């Protein structure tokens, strides 16, 4: 029993242990230098990542509050990988920061929240996990303490997440009012599609949509991404969104299966809106972080297509895309983080002639952008391919056509940036960026991931076999 407890809750307990180790270092009298704290935290996060691969088990605990299985283990490992890479990339920025330990504390509690959210088998657990995942992020967005934009980002994030939590809670309470239960196991049998239940579901859906910034609920995204420190932005756009996508897909497929007709139409509408508006706004951004923000909104639209497929391939393609997205977007943000930390430049025009001074970083950024655009040899192509294949199973060719058109639009602004990197001349280019062993490691992991997860078909097959059907 106790053994089970440790194995089943391993993913949650490890971050908790690291959290308390770091907290006691902070509270204790020993003054550690930033470099040694970062080294320690990265080692601990690496152990956390590796430990996730061993001794896993399926099962549930605490009544119907907590459950885990092979797919959930994989999802949590993807998030662990994401947070490890984010932590590696944050080193350049954290080196001189006053509150390094707090950064890790908040990052870890957010991670814990995501894990509880993914493993929760009860709307209450889900809600608490969601709050634990978002509230520390709002504080993290404020971590550029002297910048006003950072405070503004934190304020916008906390306001929009409070609003979405309000919607979500209202939905949950209505759901409880009509069914009398919050357990994922009991809910499907009690859902009969009455008007009030659909209303409650729409509110729940809106809460989710806020978190993964689907258009019309995306308004906070660009401002928060722009104002927050780059490592926090990359955490928000990759790890946080990935966690919500995982939960979203599994909740829709299992708990709200009886309402499948309702949510299929909602997904269709929202994915079209998200792709079109995300891409159109990305076209005219001047700040690279804002551009990546809108591109990430557009990518969410593609993920919704995959989820709308409502099949085993739907789950598998969404999970696979998140894995690819972790490598791809973190590679892009990693380069942006390095440039931002050392020069403070974040505009797209600053990146003109980047290749001349920083050939390696320029190539990394270019590969990441190709992958984001979905150009064939990279993993991003396979990610989008599987998503659209899953969506196509529903025979809704309008959706597929719009998705294809959007891929072309997105290609324009991604390639525009690539052109700026390699071909445009710049009188005052970004100076030579030096990067340490942490950043190098992060870049190597990202590039390897982008190439391998695309070329090795075994990755997708593995995920597909773990995924549950509809």
């Amino acid at each position: 029993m106790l053994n089970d407890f440790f194995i089943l809750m391993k993913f949650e307990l490890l971050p908790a242990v690291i959290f308390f180790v770091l907290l006691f270092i902070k509270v204790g009298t020993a003054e550690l230098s930033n470099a040694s704290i970062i080294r320690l935290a990265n080692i601990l996060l690496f152990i956390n990542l590796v430990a996730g691969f061993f001794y896993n088990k399926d099962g549930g605990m605490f009544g119907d509050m907590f459950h885990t299985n092979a797919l959930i283990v994989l999802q949590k490992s993807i998030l662990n990988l994401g947070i490890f890479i984010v932590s590696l990339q944050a080193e350049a920025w954290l080196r001189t920061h006053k509150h390094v330990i707090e950064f890790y504390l908040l990052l870890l509690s957010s991670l814990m929240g995501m894990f509880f959210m993914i493993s929760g088998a009860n709307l209450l657990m889900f809600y608490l996990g969601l709050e634990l995942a978002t509230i520390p992020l709002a504080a993290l967005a404020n971590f550029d303490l002297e910048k006003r934009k950072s405070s503004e980002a934190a304020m916008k994030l906390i306001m929009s997440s409070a609003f979405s939590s309000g919607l979500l809670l209202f939905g949950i309470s209505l759901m409880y009012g009509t069914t009398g239960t919050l357990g994922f196991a009991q809910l499907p049998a009690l859902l009969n599609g009455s008007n009030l239940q659909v209303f409650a579901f729409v509110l729940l859906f809106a809460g989710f949509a806020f978190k993964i910034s689907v258009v019309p609920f995306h308004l906070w995204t660009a401002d928060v991404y722009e104002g927050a420190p780059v490592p926090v932005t990359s955490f928000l756009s990759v790890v946080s969104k990935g966690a919500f996508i995982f939960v979203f897909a599994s909740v829709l497929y299992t708990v709200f299966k009886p309402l499948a007709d309702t949510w299929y139409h909602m997904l269709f509408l929202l994915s079209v809106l998200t792709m079109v508006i995300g891409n159109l706004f990305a076209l005219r951004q001047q700040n690279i972080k804002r551009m990546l923000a809108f591109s990430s909104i557009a990518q969410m639209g593609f993920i919704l297509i995959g989820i709308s497929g409502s099949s085993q391939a739907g789950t598998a393609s969404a999970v696979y895309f998140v894995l690819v997205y972790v490598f791809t977007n973190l590679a892009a943000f990693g380069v942006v983080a390095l440039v931002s930390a050392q020069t403070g430049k974040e505009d797209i025009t600053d990146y003109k002639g980047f290749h001349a001074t920083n050939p390696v970083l320029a190539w990394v950024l270019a590969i990441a952008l190709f992958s984001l655009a979905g150009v064939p040899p990279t993993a991003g192509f396979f990610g989008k391919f599987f998503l659209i294949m899953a969506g196509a199973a529903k025979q809704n060719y309008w959706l597929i056509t719009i998705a294809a058109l959007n891929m072309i639009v997105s290609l324009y602004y991604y390639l525009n940036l690539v052109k700026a990197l390699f071909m445009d001349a710049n009188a005052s280019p970004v100076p030579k960026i030096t990067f340490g062993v942490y950043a190098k490691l992060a870049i190597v992991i990202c590039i390897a991931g982008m190439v391998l997860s695309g070329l090795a078909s075994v990755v997708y097959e593995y995920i597909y076999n773990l995924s549950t059907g509809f």
Partner: protein
Amino acid sequence: MSTSEILFWFLSVLALFSAIMVLVSKNPIHSVLWLIVVFFAISGHYLLLNAQFLAIVNIIVYAGAIMVLFLFVIMLMNLNKETEPSRNIWMKFSGVISGGLLLWIFVSATRSAGEIVGKTAMIKEGSIGLIENLGKVLFTQYALPFEISSVLFLSAMVGAVVIGKKQ
């Protein structure tokens, strides 16, 4: 009409009226004070459902602590009628329209919900709101969410301290 029904209607009207006053008051201090009245009315509803512990905790936490902090902040910011930003009339108009539509949908969805129409709440019976049962449930069935919320508060505190420490 029984006493509980009279109390229910009284508290509901009070809660709705004060909630509306929270929104329409020009002075933020008045809004906060009306909000305190709302919490009292809600606590009254808890009492009607025989959940005394929840009623009291609602008062301690919201009326006694959170609203006091609200009052603190708003009083120190010295907001008054003049500093209230004036809103565009079209914004107000569209806000009223969309809010009204949402209310309309909600009311009609509730009226058509077969599960809850015609059922009355268990007034003055049911023992789940009593502190003993609540404590037992909290430490057995809901032990995990309870612990998670403590981590949530810890991390929120860490965040607040970092933000508060910047000079």
